[in-house]
């Protein structure tokens, strides 16, 4: 039993079509994923693009990417400057494939790490501002104040929820969530 020429050509043509679908499929810049998300490539393999995580998110933090959103189409992502993750963890049990690790505790959300830009941060520039320190859900653990004034992120406690980035009073946030 052989494969017909027509089927072979269709397979080759389909392969080419798949490869031209790269804008929809290919890897793209890092984005903040929902809490408990697997590491990038494992997440993209397991995520079914079903959108349940976004639908159960009571804050509307989780969005589903269209092909114009700069990440893989159909995947969930968070823009913390607009709406951060408040770590209710409701999205985790909604995930049918384990792309969001089942049973993830909020302390283990491991979404990213907040990084302070000391050149623009008000406190680091000598002014008085404790906004991110006060808003952090892991109070005095993930963000601590150096000399009672300047915010410092402690990576072992920060999960990257983005609340600090959301509340930062600077026009461009001086504390932003980055890849872990």
């Amino acid at each position, binding site marked *: 039993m052989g494969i017909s020429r027509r*089927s072979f050509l269709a*397979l080759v043509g389909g392969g080419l079509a798949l490869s031209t679908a790269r804008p929809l*499929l290919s890897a793209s810049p890092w984005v903040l994923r929902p809490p408990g998300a697997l590491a990038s490539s494992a997440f993209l393999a*397991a995520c*079914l693009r*079903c959108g349940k995580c976004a639908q159960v998110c009571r804050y509307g933090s989780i969005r589903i990417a*269209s092909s114009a959103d700069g990440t893989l189409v159909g995947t969930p992502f968070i823009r913390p400057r607009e709406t951060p993750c408040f770590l209710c963890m409701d999205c985790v049990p909604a995930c*049918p494939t384990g792309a969001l690790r089942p049973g993830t505790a909020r302390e283990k959300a491991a979404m990213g790490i907040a990084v302070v830009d000391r050149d623009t941060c008000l406190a680091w520039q000598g002014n008085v501002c404790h906004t991110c320190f006060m808003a952090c859900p892991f109070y005095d653990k993930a963000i601590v104040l150096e000399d009672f004034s300047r915010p410092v992120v402690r990576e072992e406690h920060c999960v990257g929820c983005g609340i600090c980035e959301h509340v930062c009073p600077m026009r461009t946030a001086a504390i932003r969530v980055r890849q872990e």
Partner: protein
Amino acid sequence: MRARLPHADGSHPGSTGVTQLNRARFRPGSWSTASAAVQAAVLAGLLLPRLGVPLVIGTLASTRIAGFVLTDPLAAAQVTLATTSISWPLLSSTVPVLVFYLVSGRTFCGWICPVNTLLDVAHRLLPVQARIRKRPPDGRVVALALTLLGSAALGMPVFEIISPIAILVRNLLFGMGPEIAVVVVLVAIDLWVIDRAWCRYLCPLGYLYSLLAALSPLRVRIDAARCTRCGACEGCPAGIPILRAFIEAGKPAMVSGDCTRCGYCVDVCPTSSLSLDLKLRLPGVARDRPAALRTQQEKAPW
């Protein structure tokens, strides 16, 4: 009513092989009414979370209905291949879906799929006829192979990303994106180029369900004595030549994995020769009605 005879070339009066949905009217109790109601209910259910009623969560890849998770078997297969790991909760959530389609046949396509719903609406609103009447090659096996191989090779569930079904549902639920062009092009091809091109010749999901449907006990029963060879059933959305392939061969029922059990043929048949029949029949048991009834019907078939 006089029985019309086939043309010499084998075609039938009124038979084009092109979907003619408007022939099936929305009468109370008709299959067209029932399937349209279910199609509307599926869309409404999926859209409930947009209205703040999270009773049905998810898309057709995976849906949680009142706490109960149902996952599309093809979606689960892609994730299993992409992750190269087996998730039992995921696979067990496909079992009710598999059982349902094993029994009911390819009803996903005719009753649930929102792309088919969109095409049905398009065909009813714009009764145009596709240009190309010749059947293109059936690419569904290749599409299914590419879906599975592509998911393993690229490490992603490829069909869930690029399929018009997934794109349509996601765009309805989470806002429109440029990728909706895929759906627009598909509808245009369907109306003006090749009738039901996606559903009949390309969709790997419909093909998977048509493989499962081979064992389904839900079939279109044929009463050949009543058939006038009018050809109305040849406007079937799934493109099944019931008249030529089954009625002329003297079959008691239309057995086809490609049949979406939409009931179109039953609705349009002017002599009620066709019926959807879910009775489980053991092989070898006579399908014919009692002889007395049969002769009576042969005398006055309609």
